[in-house]
Every structure is written in structure tokens, then in C-alpha cells.
């Protein structure tokens, strides 16, 4: 019984933890501009993250080694350093966006400028990392993030023409004033938002923090194979809401207020309250995850003591990295750069850093030294290779498309 509870809790946490500012903004933006004509990318992205997160979970459960250990071991110090710099910068950019997101949620609820909320949000992120136990932090914000289910409720309440939505979803091509270059650009953005590298850093390091062993494989797999797809459905619901409400009205999404507006339209003030709490939980939880991931990647590359399972003073360099990152995020936001814009770019840069992150995972998930008999079967490897090819294509196409479309305009 206790076990079932644990598994359920893990799944719920995974659903809530899946959606972050990147998913919120990108899905809403794409829904408003392309309807559901890009929905397939979310599905492709979710399958990809399931595939690779499962490999990470297996490697952690069988060997106790988190992802960045593998990256340095298999790619060596030089290529490893390149991967570190790329994925660290993307994660830092995401942290900036998440802290900005928390502040924007407060701005919407209070009408007080987000720049005033931001230092408070940053401090709260640090305090929680400093003082709160890992499992608690994961559960509280994961469960609160579940409130974003309100997007799915709102979609039903808006009473869309389901046939029309299905029609859009099954026709993968640009519409209206969009052309193939913006279509491809936002496909990469959605892909990057779903497969963003910090998810595997956090997932695998979290496995070490919670001392996973072979027995926890079931938990790890159920989190991945049930939790993530349900999180993906949440993403699609967000896209559906803006597709129904904004696409016909010619409204483009550029602010967090617009992201939450469909819920208010469908469910009124209560809906708005729920969605704002959900957005706060999702972005705050993701801010914790990205701040921790900044520390995890550097500490694991250098071999420093890391993790929240020891007292802060025993992992001093790990904590210093996180403090520096949070301060950097705060300073960046103080230049009054638009957090939503930072989000839009962060997901595209994420797509660029993906191949080097995922290659070592695929290699090690086949290595009996790490996973014993639990190596990848031929089917997993075939999928793994297809996704690796997709990641390489997305990574190479990201910058040229960013230039051609002027950042998706």
C-alpha cells in the first residue's frame, strides 16, 4: 500500500513538474499562431524525453552515477567541458526565465510591478534550496503544479469544435501569414521545451539524492512513462486553449497575462486564482530544479561533493555555484529584460545543446559495466538513434532558422 502511494505520488509530481515557464509560454504562443498544426511536435518531444529519462533513471538505479558523470567519462574533459558550458548556460537562461515567471505571476495577482517581486522570488528560491529537504521540495511544488490541470478543464469549458481541433492536429503545415521557416523554428522551440537538458540532469541527480537502487526501477519507470505523458497532455491543453480563443481573434501571445487569460474566460475569477497558483508552483518548482541543475552540472563535471543529502557546509562549492547563479539571474532580470522573451530564446538554445547531452546517456545505457543486464534492447536503441538524429538536425537548424525568421517574427 505504501508502495502504491509512493508510486502515485511520484507520478503526480512528475506531471506537475513537467510543465515550466518554457512549456507555458511556448505552447500558448504556438497555439495562438499555428492552432494545433504543431501539436505533433509535443508528442514527439514527450516520447523523446520519456525514452532518455528512462535510460537515465536506469543508469542511476543500477550504478548510482548521474548524467554529468557519464558525460565527462565518455566524452572526456574537453568535449565534456564544451557540453558543460553549453548546457550550463542554457540552464542558467532557464533559471532567469523561471524566476522572472514567478515574479510575473505575482505581478498579475497583485498589479505590483514584477521587478519588485523578483528579488523576493530569488531569495525564496535560495532559502528553499538551503533549508528544505529534497523529497519535500519536489513533492510540494510538483503537487501544486498539478493545479495547471485547470487548462484542460478550461479547454472543455470553452466548448471547442473538437472535429476542427483534430483537423488541425492532423495537418502539419503552416497557416495564415506563417511560412515554413517560422513553422520549423517553432517546431524546434517546442521540441527544446519538451526535452530541455535540465530535466535529465535534475531527474538523474534526484535519483542519487533519493538513493535509488535496483528496487526503485519501477518507481522511476512509472514516473517517466505515466507522469511525463500526462504532463505532455497538459502542454497540449494549454496549446488548445489559445488555439480556440486567440487564433480566430488574431491575438498573439507575448505576456504571461495572455497565457492565463483563456482560463479566466472559461472559468472566471476562481479559474484565474487557480491558474495563477499553478503557474507560481510550476515556475517556482522549475526555478528550484534549474538552480540545483546549475550546481549539479558543474559539481559533477569537477567531481565535487554535491547534493542536498549532505549538510550545506559539506558541499560548499556546490552551494556557492547555486548562490552565484541565483544572483546572476537576479542581476540579469534587473536590466528589465522581458522574462517571456528570455523564455522564448532559452527553449531554442536548449535544442542546440541537446545532442551532446543525450549521446553519452545512450552509450552508457548499453554498457553492462553500468547497468548490468538491464541494457537497452534493440527497440530502445532504434528509437534512441532516431531521436539522436532528430536532435542533431534540430541543433544544427536552430541558429540559421533563428536568423532567417528574426527570432520567430
Amino acid at each position, binding site marked *: 500500500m505504501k508502495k502504491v502511494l509512493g508510486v502515485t505520488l511520484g507520478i503526480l509530481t512528475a506531471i506537475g513538474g513537467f510543465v515550466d515557464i518554457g512549456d507555458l509560454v511556448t505552447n500558448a504562443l504556438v497555439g495562438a499562431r499555428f492552432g494545433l498544426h504543431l501539436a505533433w511536435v509535443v508528442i514527439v518531444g514527450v516520447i523523446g524525453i520519456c525514452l532518455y529519462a528512462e535510460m537515465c533513471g536506469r543508469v542511476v538505479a543500477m550504478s548510482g552515477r548521474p548524467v554529468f558523470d557519464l558525460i565527462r567519462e565518455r566524452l572526456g574533459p574537453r568535449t565534456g567541458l564544451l557540453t558543460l558550458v553549453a548546457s550550463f548556460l542554457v540552464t542558467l537562461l532557464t533559471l532567469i526565465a523561471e524566476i522572472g515567471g514567478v515574479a510575473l505571476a505575482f505581478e498579475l495577482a497583485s498589479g505590483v510591478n514584477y521587478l519588485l517581486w523578483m528579488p523576493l522570488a530569488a531569495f525564496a528560491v535560495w532559502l528553499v534550496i538551503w533549508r528544505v529537504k529534497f523529497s519535500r521540495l519536489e513533492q510540494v511544488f510538483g503537487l501544486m503544479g498539478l493545479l495547471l490541470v485547470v487548462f484542460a478543464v478550461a479547454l472543455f469549458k470553452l466548448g471547442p469544435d473538437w472535429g476542427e481541433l483534430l483537423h488541425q492536429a492532423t495537418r502539419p503545415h503552416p497557416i495564415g501569414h506563417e511560412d515554413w521557416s517560422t513553422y520549423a523554428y517553432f517546431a524546434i522551440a517546442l521540441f527544446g521545451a519538451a526535452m530541455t537538458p535540465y530535466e535529465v540532469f535534475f531527474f538523474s541527480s534526484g535519483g542519487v539524492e533519493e538513493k535509488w537502487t535496483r528496487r526503485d526501477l519501477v518507481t522511476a519507470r512509472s514516473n517517466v512513462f505515466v507522469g511525463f505523458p500526462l504532463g505532455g497532455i497538459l502542454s497540449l491543453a494549454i496549446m488548445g486553449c489559445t488555439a480556440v480563443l486567440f487564433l480566430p481573434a488574431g491575438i498573439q501571445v507575448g505576456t504571461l497575462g495572455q497565457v492565463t487569460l483563456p482560463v479566466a474566460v472559461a472559468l*472566471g*475569477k476562481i479559474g484565474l486564482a487557480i491558474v495563477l497558483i499553478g503557474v507560481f508552483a510550476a515556475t517556482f518548482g522549475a526555478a528550484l530544479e534549474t538552480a540545483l541543475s546549475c550546481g549539479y552540472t558543474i559539481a559533477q563535471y569537477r567531481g565535487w561533493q554535491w547534493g542536498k543529502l549532505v549538510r550545506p557546509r559539506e558541499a560548499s562549492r556546490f552551494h556557492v555555484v547555486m548562490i552565484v547563479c541565483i544572483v546572476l539571474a537576479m542581476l540579469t532580470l534587473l536590466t528589465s529584460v522581458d522574462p517571456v522573451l528570455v523564455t522564448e530564446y532559452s527553449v531554442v538554445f536548449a535544442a542546440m545543446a541537446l545532442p551532446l547531452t543525450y549521446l553519452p546517456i545512450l552509450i552508457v545505457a548499453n554498457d553492462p559495466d553500468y547497468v548490468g543486464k538491464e541494457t537497452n534492447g534493440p527497440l530502445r536503441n532504434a528509437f534512441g538513434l532516431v531521436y539522436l538524429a532528430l536532435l542533431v538536425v534540430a541543433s544544427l537548424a536552430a541558429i540559421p532558422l533563428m536568423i532567417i525568421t528574426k527570432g520567430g517574427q
Partner: protein
Amino acid sequence: MRRAVAITLLTILILSGCGSPDQKLRSAAAQSARSAASEVSTTRLAVEQLRAQHLWTRSAGQIVKDAEKGVETAASSFSAQQPSTPTSTRLYEQVTKTLDDAQTAVTAVRIALGNDDLAAAEQQLPALRQSATDLSRIGELAQ
């Protein structure tokens, strides 16, 4: 001789790839109009939802504040254009006026919401709808 010069000029113009100045302006107008239309419709939606008591005044105020900034950006990016033919000058003036109207309406709503004056905000609804229609029409001028 003259003909050769004309042909050369035309070739350069075509090769340079930016099309005629008229076309360039039309495309800039369409783009600015589309993003302004988006902000105007957002404002309209916010006011309607406020009237239906689906939004808090604070949140609606924030949404409209952001929309106002968006319209300003669209208007100022278009006003930086350089019309060089009589046709473009006419278009330029017309689009600038439509963008100005949009800006006025959105600003009026922002001020009304700032004063907690829902009635004044609702009065702008017809203007917002009209403005969105006009902008959408300009938005169809080019890709």
C-alpha cells in the same frame, strides 16, 4: 542609352530582392498592424471579461498595461519607415492614423482601469472593435 540605364536600374532593384519601396512599406504596415491588432483584441477581451466579472481589476489592468506597451512598439516601429512615392505616402499616413487610433483607445482603457472606472473602459469597446477590424484589414496587405 536611357533604356539601358532603366533596365539596369530595374535589374538592380529586382536583384536587391527587397522589391519596390511600395511593397516594402506595405509589408512593414501589415506586420505592425497585425501585432497592434493582437494587442487591441487582447484589451477588448480583457474589458469584456472584466464586465462579465471573470477577471480582477488588478489583473485586467496589468494585461492592458502590457497591451499598451505592445501597441506603442508596433506604432513606433512603423513610424520609422520612409515612404518615398506618392502611393506609399498615402499608405503611410493612413496606417499611422489607424495605429494612432488604436493607441488612443487602448490608453483610454488603461487610464479608466487605473481609476477603477469600468464604465469608461466599457465605452471604449466599440472603438476597440472598430480599430481591430481596421488593423486586420491592413494586416492582409502583405504576407
